[in-house]
């Protein structure tokens, strides 16, 4: 840590926090990926987690994922709610025996001293109805604040995980607020510089929060979104169907990833429609089910691909 210049230190710089976490997990042996280039609601949606959690082959990866939750937009006015924020995601398959220690060391790396702070693992079972996924784990507390989610995946996309992956999700903005000692996300120091050189989270994202909140709640084109949902759903099914090959005795799939992209698209269209308030309570359930059916079909396809299957 001594080698780190002040502007890179995780307690002073948002990007410094990200870089420190990347560095830490790269040192552990993770593949450091870049964000998936699509709109997703959480880091779990990245195929590097959803699909790679399936099948027997080992997989260790870490990445930042911008996450969009259209309903959480507050026009930039709420100190800790945004419609676009960053998650830092780690997936370790199979879950190593010392995963809790690895996690605690990552906290040490970003400056959270476990002899000074009260770190706790508090029960929190995770379930994603849209992904057909569930797992058991905790929310990790530091001095009463939830700083991460920790999950042992038991099932993803309707498929039993064998072996089980461990998933860590750091809520970066909240963690950074804690480290920098500020009460509002907008007040975060983004680049770790001071004075005229300082760029705040507000400088980067405030306008975006306002514009997207307007879009998500007031103007998003619902007719188009309904249509997009249907198109993505149809495309997903089409690609899935087209992808099956029967090579030798083994059933094989050749297009799980493009099909899954369409599942992600459908999910995001649904989230926008939900934010616009045009989906009734009963319809809501059926949309979630439709996305889950796509996710399950993609999972089924994935375990018949080169990367997803045994051997």
């Amino acid at each position: 840590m001594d080698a780190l210049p002040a502007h890179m230190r995780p307690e002073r710089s948002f990007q410094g926090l990200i870089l420190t976490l990347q560095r830490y997990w790269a040192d552990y042996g993770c593949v450091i990926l870049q964000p998936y280039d699509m709109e997703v609601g959480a880091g779990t949606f990245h195929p590097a987690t959803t699909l790679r959690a399936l099948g027997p082959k080992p997989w260790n990866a870490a990445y930042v994922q911008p996450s969009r939750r259209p309903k959480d937009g507050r026009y930039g006015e709420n100190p800790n709610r945004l419609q676009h924020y960053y998650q830092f995601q780690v997936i370790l398959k199979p879950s190593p025996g010392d995963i809790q220690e690895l996690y605690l060391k990552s906290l040490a790396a970003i400056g959270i001293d476990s002899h000074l702070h009260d770190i706790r693992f508090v029960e929190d079972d995770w379930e994603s109805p849209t992904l057909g996924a569930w797992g058991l784990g905790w929310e990790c507390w530091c001095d009463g604040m939830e700083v991460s989610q920790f999950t042992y995946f038991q099932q993803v996309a309707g498929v039993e995980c064998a072996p089980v992956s461990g998933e860590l999700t750091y809520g970066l903005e909240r963690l950074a607020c804690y480290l920098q000692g500020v009460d509002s996300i907008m007040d975060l120091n983004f680049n770790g510089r001071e004075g005229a050189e300082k760029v705040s989270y507000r400088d980067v994202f405030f306008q975006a929060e306002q514009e997207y909140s307007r879009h998500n709640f007031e103007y998003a084109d619902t007719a188009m979104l309904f249509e997009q949902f249907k198109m993505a759903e149809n495309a997903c099914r089409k690609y899935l169907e087209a992808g099956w090959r029967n090579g030798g005795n083994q059933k094989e799939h050749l297009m799980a990833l493009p099909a899954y992209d369409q599942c992600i698209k459908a999910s995001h269209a649904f989230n926008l429609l939900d934010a616009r308030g045009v989906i009734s309570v009963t319809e809501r359930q059926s949309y979630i089910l439709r996305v889950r059916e796509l996710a399950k079909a993609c999972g089924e396809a994935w375990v018949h691909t080169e990367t997803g299957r045994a051997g």
Partner: protein
Amino acid sequence: MPDLLLELFSEEIPARMQAKAADDLRRMVTDKLVAEGLVYEGAKAFATPRRLALTVHGIPPRQADLKDERKGPRVGGPEAAIAGFLKATGLSSIEEAQIQRDPKKGDFYIALIEKPGRATIDVLAEILPVIIRTFPWPKSMRWGARSAKSGSLSWVRPLHAITCTFGLETEEPDVVKFNVDGIETGQTTFGHRFMAPQAISVRRFEDYEAKLLEANVVLDAERRKDAIVTDARTLAQAQNFELVEDQALSDEVSGLVEWPVVLMGSFDKEFLSIPGEVIRATIRNNQKCFVVRDPATDKLANKFVLTANIEASDGGKAIVDGNERVIRARLSDAKFFYESDLKTKLEDRLPKFDQIVFHEKLGTQGERIKRIERLAAEIAPLVDADVEKTKRAARLAKADLLTEVVGEFPELQGLMGKYYALAQGEDASVAAASEEHYKPQGPNDRVPTDPVSVAVALADKIDTLVGFWAIDEKPTGSKDPYALRRAALGVIRLIVENKLRLHLLQMTAAANGGRPTNGGQLATDLLSFFADRLKVQLREQGARHDLVDAVFALEGQDDLLMVVRRVEALGKFLDSDDGKNLLAGTKRASNILSIEEKKDKRSFDGAPDAALYRLDEEKALAKAIDQVKRDAGAAVAKEDFAAAMSAMAKLRPAVDAFFDKVKVNDDDPKVRENRLKLLNEIRAATRAVADFSKVEG
């Protein structure tokens, strides 16, 4: 005798599961020991966030040898029978069997089979892995590389180590050797995650518990809880405050820490403008912290008490700072919710209920609220409540369900309604009904007494019951998803404890409005549900359930207060000698009647003919019955059931004398019929208060 120590060391076990898990572990291991013939002296189980532990002391070192005598075929019996006997008993030849002499039936073979007892440590090594593999966690999971294979161990969270020793106090104990999915038993455990993470070698329970304590782990949840509550009280008192005690919270918090360190933090006084219950819910539910109150004002102070799991190197300053920041953010949210709630009048929220489905077969919340309002208005005059206030209260009582604060903290429903109603200037009774109409929530909850609250509470519950009865969603067995039993008990307590005179059949008819009643079946069905609930309620208070049956057996008993009064009077009467004897007489009359009714295939209703009386005892009885009917009837009309009972007591000598001297089945059929009619009159006379034939004994 030797002792067992077992510890299952894992990642963090959810607080809510710990106590039951400890109990399950103790029960499963000791049950199995007993089933294996190993009777122990005592057992105790413990749980912390990271371990389940069990000590069983005084287990015999070996099972007793088993001796079994097996009777075989007769000496000289068929060869096949002897071969079968040898096979079944494991004897190698018939010479090994003994011969039992039997001069009557002939001699036969006996096999003495001796099964030597096994060493307890071997039995343990066999039963414990099975218990671990079949442990009843409410939710369990797989983990790690082994989860790739089917049949891998499931545990609540990853299990890391198993300590298991067995031996005498005076000797070095043995490790009970077994292996569960790759985890080998040993005698190594670990201390506090941060304060003393190093491995600890343990021998038996006494040094185990002591070494854990040195390693900053308090094994016993009760001790952790006591420490938390005691320290929290002390911290509060030091500042002249008092802790707001919270049993459920102390239970939960003691399951979140192995080494409780209690600290106090504060928040900005401006937040005290929020209702205390909202502050408490925020701090308690989200942060698992206690709140404190100022005994002088009985209001919350701007302090909270947190329980950390560590003695921090700075004495807890950073921990308090961190918690204060989180609580500040949470309270800001709560304050924002509360203040924005205040901007909308409760009645302006009502139209939204028309969009919210209460139950798909029972329409919207909006329709339900209108029904409750209508029914409450009908009940109001019967309970001395102002009709207009009652209607207003019923209309607003549910409105807070749509507020932000109740959305965030559902347990504050009703209470927030009261605050918001007062803030918009509603009448105090109207506002109170928001909170009170949900009561009583159970057998120990307070029953509202304000007539407006009583009327709305009754209307709410009766509407629920009638609605679910109408769509045939009644509770069955342990399933009661709509808490209908609780609603019925609520109605009973509201009526009985407020001494209200209400006719349930009228109420249910009113609640049902114009909907189909299934030929009146709904109302009688529901009434018998009330009768069952009342029975449970009275039984818990020590009354006999058969007395409730005896009263409900009379026609049209839907006035619960009167039912209870009858049961009380009947109970007292039956405790007296007069009561017991009259009951015996009545029963005798009933028995004779039912036999003769069966024989003649007819009943003996109708007045006896005085001209047919032959004996003085008959005449005396007839006179006594007339007298009792008059007196008891008059007493019942005045609702003086005790007096009705005393009147009935006067029947006893005449009944006794009748049975003493009179032969019912006289040879003259006319006399016989008349006497049977007289017996029927006894039964009829006693029905003024209850149907004595339903009384047991």
